[in-house]
């Protein structure tokens, strides 16, 4: 079942939590709502679940459809949505078994499965979430990861067509979180249930989701596959949110972009930017050389080196006092023999330019790849 959100807004008093949001989640996909806290992602999820009403028709076409059925007038109880809460929201006076069976037991008599059907369904779900032996435990006798899996099993018991998860792994420690998200991804693919989950962790979204919806200040900044949002961010916000970035103030002028002491060619085709601009470079796109090779580059001084990790992170200060971060491979680091205070030559391999007009809603963007240095 697909989810379609058409022109939904939500205000809390004078605060705008959602501003005219449109979104489609195709059947069977795993979609992440990604954004900082206060971006409206949880509000959107709760509105889809029916736990929160949207503002009454701010837009004539404002509506939410589940597989082209308008659900605006249907309350949470009848939406047949599985919802998993950040802090589990398990019923602590019930055993794991009773928690999972709850959704089946509260059904109207004619829809309610028999006792033995409930028993086998719960057993099936316990196997699915790998908690077979724990049916008679109470929630406070389980670890955080186990509780979240119980919450998931409980949400899945009624075979919902839509699964909504609100920061499902937010309260877990890093290792459990990584295991669970891979596991959730596989489970979702097996069950083929349309899933929307909220997260503020970009790694989680990039690793797990089919589509990522990046949100900020109650608006959707970009919708795309992990590759699209990561490699082709639609806005400065998306660029900044999905990983570390070096920022320069620059100018676009007749096919070139100038920043710091550099002037790089800038492709003409999508030349909507002129004048003041901001230039972004990811740390792994900053190459370091100990000798100048004739290409335009910045002179810099090494300030600090963090070599523990898959990549070596080098903090630099350019001759124009601009702070820069570069990430290079361990091998390259070894051949260069960098040390703090080394003089080096730095080149951005790939830059992204956004017009620096913060009030523009959809700033025109363009990318440029300076021809490769290695």
């Amino acid at each position, binding site marked *: 079942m697909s989810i379609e959100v058409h022109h939904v807004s939500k205000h809390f008093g004078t605060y705008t939590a959602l501003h005219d949001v449109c979104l489609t989640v195709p059947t069977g996909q795993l979609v992440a709502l990604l954004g900082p806290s206060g971006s409206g992602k949880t509000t959107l999820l709760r509105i889809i*679940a*029916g*736990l929160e009403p949207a503002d009454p028709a701010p837009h004539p076409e404002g509506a939410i459809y589940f597989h082209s059925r308008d659900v605006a007038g249907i*309350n*949470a*109880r*009848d*939406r*047949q*949505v*599985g*919802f998993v*809460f950040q*802090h589990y*929201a*398990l*019923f*602590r*006076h*019930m055993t794991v078994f009773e928690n999972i069976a*709850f*959704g089946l*037991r*509260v*059904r109207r008599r004619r829809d309610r499965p028999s006792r033995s059907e409930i028993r086998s369904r719960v057993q099936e779900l316990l196997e699915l979430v790998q908690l077979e032996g724990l049916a008679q435990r*109470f929630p*406070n*006798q389980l670890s955080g990861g186990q509780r979240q899996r119980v919450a998931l099993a*409980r*949400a899945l*018991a*009624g075979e919902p067509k839509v699964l909504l998860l609100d920061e499902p792994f937010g309260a877990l420690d890093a290792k459990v979180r990584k295991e669970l998200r891979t596991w959730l991804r596989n489970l979702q693919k097996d069950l083929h249930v349309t899933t929307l989950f909220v997260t503020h962790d970009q790694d989680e979204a990039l690793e797990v989701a089919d589509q990522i919806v990046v949100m900020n200040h109650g608006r959707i900044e970009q919708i795309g596959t992990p590759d699209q949002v990561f490699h082709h961010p639609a806005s400065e916000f998306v660029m900044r949110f999905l990983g570390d970035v070096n920022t320069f103030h620059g100018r676009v002028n007749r096919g070139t972009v100038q920043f710091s002491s550099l002037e790089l060619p800038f492709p003409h085709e999508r030349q909507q930017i002129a004048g003041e601009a901001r230039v972004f470079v990811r740390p792994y796109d900053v190459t370091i050389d100990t000798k100048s090779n004739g290409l335009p580059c910045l002179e810099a001084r090494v300030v600090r080196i963090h070599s523990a990790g898959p990549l070596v992170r080098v903090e630099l200060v350019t001759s124009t006092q601009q702070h820069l971060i570069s990430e290079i491979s361990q091998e390259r680091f070894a051949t260069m023999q960098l040390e703090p205070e080394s003089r080096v030559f730095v080149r951005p391999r790939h830059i992204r330019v956004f017009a620096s007009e913060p009030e523009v809603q959809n700033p025109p963007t363009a990318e440029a790849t300076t021809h490769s240095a290695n």
Partner: protein
Amino acid sequence: MRKRTSHTAARLPGFTLTIGFTIAYLSAVVLLPLSMLFMRAAGLGPAGFWEVVTTPRVVAAYKLSFGAAFAAAGINTIFGAVIAWCLVRYSFPGRRIVDAMVDLPFALPTAVSGIALATLYSPHGWIGQLLAPLGVKAAYSRLGIAIALVFIGIPFVVRTLQPALEDLDPTIEEAAASLGASRAQTLRRVILPMVMPSLLTGFTLAFARALGEYGSVVFISGNMPMKTEIVPLLIIAQLEQYQYEAAAAIGLTMLGCSILILLSINFLQWRASRFGRTQ
């Protein structure tokens, strides 16, 4: 309960001191006066004791006292729960004033509330005159006793339930709703079981308070033997006639019954809160 281990150095010391104090204090304040009750009652001898406590007038008073206290505690549990829910879950203008009003029965001298209630519910009082044409006699009847006991018991239920309701996570209700539960099902299957221990505590406190209540009841009950005479009043009557042994015997029986009832409520509470324990 946590077992005491030998690794107590990191915690505040003082188990020996506090347990010694606890026992000494409780002995002086609770056990000693109660043992005097036993001593006095023992003066009657088994046969005399039995005779005193099975007098029809005494038995009627027992039934009335326990019945009225039970009814009042039951009513308070239901409406106290509604009040506590309203105070915890909603914010409205004047909420703090309503919250403070709950404590008034605590603060008033019971005799004052008794007189106030008797005036209000007497056949010429504001409420009494409305009830009289309907054939309902509020003051000087068993109904009046129940009204007085409801009045003095309400804060116990509200105040014990409030913290429990504040602890209740609203997402629990949302979880129940998203799983398809109706409001009634959410209340019955989720909220009630979770607050049941506190609800029972509130009931117990209101019940215990109502059993021993004297001041407010005597003004509104009319004190008719066999009809509206509560046990505490009967005990006072015995004392006024210098029948100390009989008074002690009646008091002791009441104490025995109360302990039995409180123990069985405790047992229910233990069952209701089993989810709170870890194995």
